[in-house]
C-alpha cells in the first residue's frame, strides 16, 4: 500500500472513508452487487479526477451518486442483480432474500437497504438520492412491506 504523500491525496482518502460506504451500498442496492461496485469505482475515480471541484461541493456524496447512476446505465444489466446467499450466510440470511430484493423497484430497494438494513437516516438517504425525506420514507415503507410479503414474514423475530 502506498502512503498518501500530498494534501490532496490525504483529503481524498478521508473523503473516501466517509463517503464510500453510503455510495457503495446505495449503488449496489439500486443496480445490483456487480454493477454497483463498478459504478462506485467509476464515481470515485471521477471524484479524484475532478477533486478540485468535488472537494468544494456541499453535497458531494449526492453528486457522486448521480455520477454513479449515469455510469451504471452504461453497463448491461446483469442477469442476476443479487447473487445467491453464500452457504456460510444461510443460517442468518434467508435464501429467498436476493430474489425478493429483485422484485422491488430501484428506489424502494435503496430506501429499504439503506434505512432498514444499514441504519442510515431518512434525511441521509434523501440527500444521497436527491429526493425529499417523505418520498424516501414512502419508498422504504412500501418496499419493506413488499419484501415482507415476498419472504412470508409478518413480524420480525
Amino acid at each position, binding site marked *: 500500500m*502506498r502512503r498518501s504523500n500530498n494534501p490532496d491525496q490525504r483529503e481524498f482518502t478521508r473523503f473516501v472513508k466517509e463517503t464510500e460506504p453510503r455510495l457503495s451500498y446505495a449503488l449496489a442496492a439500486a443496480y445490483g452487487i456487480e454493477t454497483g461496485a463498478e459504478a462506485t469505482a467509476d464515481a470515485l475515480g471521477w471524484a479524484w479526477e475532478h477533486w478540485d471541484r468535488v472537494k468544494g461541493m456541499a453535497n458531494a456524496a449526492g453528486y457522486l451518486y448521480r455520477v454513479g447512476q449515469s455510469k451504471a446505465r452504461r453497463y448491461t444489466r446483469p442477469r442476476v442483480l443479487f447473487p445467491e446467499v453464500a452457504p456460510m450466510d444461510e443460517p442468518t*440470511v434467508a435464501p429467498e432474500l436476493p430474489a425478493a430484493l429483485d422484485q422491488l423497484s430501484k428506489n424502494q430497494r435503496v430506501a429499504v437497504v439503506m434505512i432498514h438494513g444499514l441504519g442510515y437516516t431518512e434525511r441521509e438517504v434523501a440527500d444521497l438520492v436527491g429526493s425529499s425525506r417523505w418520498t424516501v420514507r414512502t419508498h422504504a415503507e412500501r418496499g419493506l412491506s413488499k419484501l415482507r410479503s415476498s419472504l412470508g414474514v409478518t413480524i420480525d423475530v
Partner: protein
Amino acid sequence: MSDLDTQIHGYFDANVERITADDVFAERRLVEQLHRSRAGWQILPKFAAAFGFAVTVFVVGGSLGLGLALHQPGDDAAAGTVSYGVGTGPPASTGWGLLSIAAFLAVFALVFIVLALRSARRNPSSRGRE
C-alpha cells in the same frame, strides 16, 4: 433466522465490494499508463497536422519539380556539355540550395511533429495529483 433488517445488513455486508482511496489511486495510475501508451498514436492537434501536411506537400512537390528541372537539358546541350539548371543561376548550386531548404523544412517538420506528440502524451488533468 434473524430479523429482516439483520438479514439485509448481513447480505449486503457479505456481498458488497468495498473500495478504498488506494484502489482509486491505483486505477488512476493504470488509466494514465494506458493513456500514455496510446498517446503515441493519437491524432495530432489540428495546427500541427495542417503544418505537417503543408510541409509534406511542399517537400514532395518541390522535390518532384526539382527532379524534373534537373533532368531537363539546358540550351547548351548541343555544344556537347550537359548542363542542368533552374532559372539562370549556376545549376548545381541552385539545386543544392533548394535541396537544403527542403531538407531543413523536412527536419523542422519532423521535430515539430515529435514535439507535438510529446505534448499530447501529457495529461493535463493529472498534473499535481500524484
